[in-house]
């Protein structure tokens, strides 16, 4: 499900079935790294949307958590943790962060949730059918992680 009013209606009727949230973490930066950061956004959005399509009924895709690349680490983490707190109160049991920004890997411990880090693949000049293929493969692997978490609980 996505953050759209139509999906929210369904969500509110069948809340007990939706227990998983995916939050894409998207960095913003300007100057030379502007392109890289936009590439990350493209890529993680494609991955996130395909995952959501496959697991529509149990997974909620949040709007992206956007931040400036030079925001301080503590500020970011505390902001993200307040999202987590709110989501937990809402009743979500599995929270996944999806990002291509390697910085998050350093603070994985402090986040305490599942951080899915995927190194970015530049897709700008790629042939659409090839692109689709790559995304499908990547999502398949993500899938395994999510399914595994579900089976554990």
């Amino acid at each position, binding site marked *: 499900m996505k953050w759209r009013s139509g999906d929210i209606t*369904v969500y509110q009727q*069948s809340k007990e*079935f*939706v227990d998983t949230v995916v939050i894409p973490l998207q960095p913003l930066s300007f100057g030379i790294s502007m392109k890289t950061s936009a590439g990350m956004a493209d890529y993680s959005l494609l991955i996130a949307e395909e995952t959501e*399509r*496959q*697991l*529509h*009924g*149990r*997974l909620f895709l949040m709007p992206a958590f956007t931040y400036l690349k030079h925001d301080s680490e503590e500020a970011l983490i505390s902001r993200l943790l307040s999202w987590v707190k709110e989501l937990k109160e809402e009743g979500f049991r599995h929270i996944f962060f999806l990002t291509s920004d390697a910085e998050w890997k350093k603070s994985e411990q402090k986040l305490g949730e599942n951080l899915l880090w995927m190194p970015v693949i530049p897709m700008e000049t790629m042939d659409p059918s090839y692109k*689709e293929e790559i995304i499908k493969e990547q999502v398949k692997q993500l*899938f395994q992680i999510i*399914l595994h978490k*579900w089976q554990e609980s």
Partner: protein
Amino acid sequence: MSKEDISRRQFLNYTLTGVGGFMAAGMLMPMVRFAIDPILEKGADQDMVAVTEVSKIGKEPKRFNFKIKQKDGWYESEVTQSAWVYKNGKGELIALSPVCKHLGCTIDWNTDPSHPNQFYCPCHGGRYEKDGTNIKGTPPLAPLDEYDSKVKDGKLYLGKAKPRKGA
């Protein structure tokens, strides 16, 4: 025929009626066309898309992807859809939608080891028989949608997915 057969008055009558009728028809035609337009319009579900060659379809459900044009307001985009296609015992082609009738996850064939030869939904464990019938005791309350299908020149064409009656 002599010239007096048609009087001046008659001649004018004929010409005026003719021209008037022509003008009236010119005005009425588009109106009538507007009125009956919905009947003449080609139904959206007549747009069928070639999915695969029939020879590639076996008895085991196989997943095929195809693209359809979707109109969302003003925005037209291509959407990839997939279908589980197989031949049943009578040799008929069955094309089932992969969207779980519970909450819309994507189902898969034969992926649950404890229940082989069934469609399985990874989200909440919904299961369906090979013919798409939902299995009682699992979350889905309706059988899988079935695509309108037809075969032309050895190719399978699929249209819209239509819901079927519950089990």
